[in-house]
């Protein structure tokens, strides 16, 4: 019987893997993942004005605004780009506004702007920002921010405070964090902010793979049922063997698919390293990169030693739970359409876990989320998130594992009874009655 189990597993896997659609889907996935990791290089490869310094011509009718504005724009630009370099070149413009407008109109590209500072009796400073076309969002925010700070700085300066003192006022304060709880440290605090952004990206493949798993088992069982091939199969192997073959094949498939996703990701990173990664596009890529380096700097590497194995173990146990449940539900349905309706609640449960994992950082210490992290099916998503954030300990993860093992045992014990009756049932009439009767037997 063991050789028949192995054979059924290999047949299920081959039916999924040895298809042109599996190859095609993975080629597309590979291209998308590599593309996403190298999105900045792809964007720059198509050309654009990414590396050009923005020229800011300043007409200063107040004497001191130019220097103050230059300093403020430099501070803002460095904060956003996380670089010592400023992406703005400030030029003091001595001609009239009309000359400046004419100069902008003659420019081919929208790379310059003119900022005019005038004294105001009522408002300290009146400012005009002149550009040929629209400014992009980041430029608008940076320039507006620098102008507002310049206004405050000018007001302070006019109150007989030296330029040196003004710079001291604007420099960031030295903050020393003190934690009365000895278990708390600044690393965890930083990690909390970082994980809120990074974790959903890490957990997304798990969510995707659990959906693959449910759909694969549902489709296979229903295919065998609707073609009545099931009668011949079950007349040769026991429903138990058939059930385990589907569960094992499904899990092997998602593990293989997961491994492929890791390979695609690694390939993307390798290509990124190979092409030198000239990070030109500011924003998401920069942020994620710096967050990952911050994570490693903050001792995340040490935590990975136990977080990765625990997370993987919990995920495998959860995959098994999903596959057992999918097998049982598929045996109860008579066609794939019915199964698709039944699988929707499972997907929603998984989705709830995903959103709660994202919100865990925001609602720190929420009892509701902590309790849900023990609940099988979503614990694999919530537990690692809460563990990284320091909201639960390793013992809590072990409790979640024990609960999912108990769930899997119950699914096998009682689910198998339903499966035995369900796979040879072709009518939805009196379905629940039949299933409850099967449970009692």
């Amino acid at each position, binding site marked *: 019987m063991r050789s*028949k189990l192995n*054979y059924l597993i290999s047949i299920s896997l081959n039916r999924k893997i040895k298809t042109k659609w599996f190859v095609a889907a993975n080629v597309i996935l590979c291209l998308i993942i590599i593309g996403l990791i190298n999105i900045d290089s792809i964007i720059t490869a198509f050309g654009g004005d990414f590396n050009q310094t923005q020229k800011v011509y300043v007409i200063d009718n107040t004497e001191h605004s130019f220097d103050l504005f230059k300093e403020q724009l430099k501070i803002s630009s460095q904060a956003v780009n996380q670089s010592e370099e400023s992406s703005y070149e400030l030029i003091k413009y001595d001609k009239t506004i009309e000359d400046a407008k004419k100069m902008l109109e003659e420019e081919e590209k929208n790379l310059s702007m003119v900022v005019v500072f005038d004294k105001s009796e009522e408002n300290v400073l009146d400012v005009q920002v002149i550009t040929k076309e629209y400014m992009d969002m980041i430029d608008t925010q940076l320039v507006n921010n620098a102008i507002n700070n310049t206004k405050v700085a000018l007001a302070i300066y006019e109150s007989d405070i030296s330029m040196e003192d003004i710079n001291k006022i604007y420099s960031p304060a030295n903050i020393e964090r003190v934690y009365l709880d000895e278990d708390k440290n600044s690393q965890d605090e930083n990690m909390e902010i970082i994980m809120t952004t990074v974790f959903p990206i890490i957990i997304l493949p798990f969510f995707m793979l659990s959906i693959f798993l449910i759909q694969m088992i549902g489709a296979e069982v229903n295919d065998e049922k609707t073609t009545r*091939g099931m*009668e*011949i*199969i*079950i*007349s040769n192997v026991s429903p138990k063997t058939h059930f385990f073959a589907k569960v094992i094949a499904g899990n092997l498939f998602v593990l293989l698919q997961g491994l492929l996703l890791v390979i695609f990701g690694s390939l993307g990173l390798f290509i990124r390293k190979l092409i030198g990664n000239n990070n030109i596009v500011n924003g998401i890529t920069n942020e994620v990169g710096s967050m990952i380096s911050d994570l490693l700097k903050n001792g995340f590497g040490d935590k990975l030693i136990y977080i990765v194995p625990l997370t993987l173990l919990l995920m495998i146990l959860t995959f098994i739970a999903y596959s057992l449940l999918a097998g049982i539900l598929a045996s109860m349905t008579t066609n794939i359409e019915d199964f698709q309706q039944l699988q929707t609640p499972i997907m929603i449960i998984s989705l709830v876990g995903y959103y709660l994992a994202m919100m865990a950082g925001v609602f720190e210490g929420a009892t509701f989320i902590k309790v849900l992290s023990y609940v099988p099916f979503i614990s694999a998503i919530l537990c690692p998130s809460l563990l990284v954030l320091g909201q639960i300990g390793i013992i809590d993860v072990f409790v979640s594992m024990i609960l999912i093992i108990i769930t899997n045992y119950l699914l096998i014990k009682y689910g198998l009874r339903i499966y035995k009756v369900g796979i*040879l049932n072709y009518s939805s009439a009196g379905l629940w009655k039949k299933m409850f009767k099967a449970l009692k037997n």
Partner: protein
Amino acid sequence: MLKVENVTKYYGDFLAVDKLSFTVKPGEIFGLLGVNGAGKTTTFRMIMGLLDSDSGSVTLNGKPIDYSQTDYIGFLTEERSLLTKMTVREQCLFFGTLKGMSREKIIERLQYLLDKFEIPEYIDKKIKELSKGNQQKIQFITAVLNEPKLLILDEPFAGLDPFNVEMFKKEIIEMAEKGSMIIFSTHRMDHVELFCKKLVVLLRGKTVISGYLSDIKEQYRKKNILIKADITKKKLEKIDGVTEVIEKADEFEVKIEDKNKVKNVFDVISKTKNVTKFVVEEPSLNEIFIAKVGENYEK
């Protein structure tokens, strides 16, 4: 020997099979007959272990049928039970391996059977691309691939043209001659008469006819007499024991209520001129079936 003993099956309150008993010995072809919903498929499923009976037992060579014996059983279901996305080769390898056969043996048997059924070119065709009749051939091939000791055929001739029915019949008879026990169900009584020695007729799960075909016909008292003579239909109808007279192109078919009444008809005919035919025939199984099932339907 297959022994089905007092097997009863309920679906909820519905009695599907009631105390059914029969035996099939090696080399025998056994017919399980009945109208739709009579309990034939339920009986097959119980024999195959796909359903548990509520009482009674099914044994093969003295042992209850379990998964240690299924490698020696062939099963053809009433509906198509093929995985239509597979090719013929893949399908046979799949079902053959589940029967414990080696890959080499499966391919060897498959090629032999495809040649025999005159469809060797379909070996790498997807099942869904085949016609209904050819799908039925493939289904039959998967059932006999392992040269089963017990072959169960649920409506094997459904969807087949007369030419292919002949092919199937030849193969079934050949397998019985080699010692296989064969049980099959059909609506076609002529098929049963052709190769079944024993049969059971079910009606709403209950056995209405059971035993050897020859005994059943013998026990059935009614007979048919074919007559060619100078006589009128009215005169024949007046004879004591005659239940019906059917006037055909150049002869009469006279149905009598009991074989003892043959003498009454003979006495009348012997006094008639130009008698060229007087043949007493056994009734067909179809007649017995309709008569018995009809009687029980009314009950």
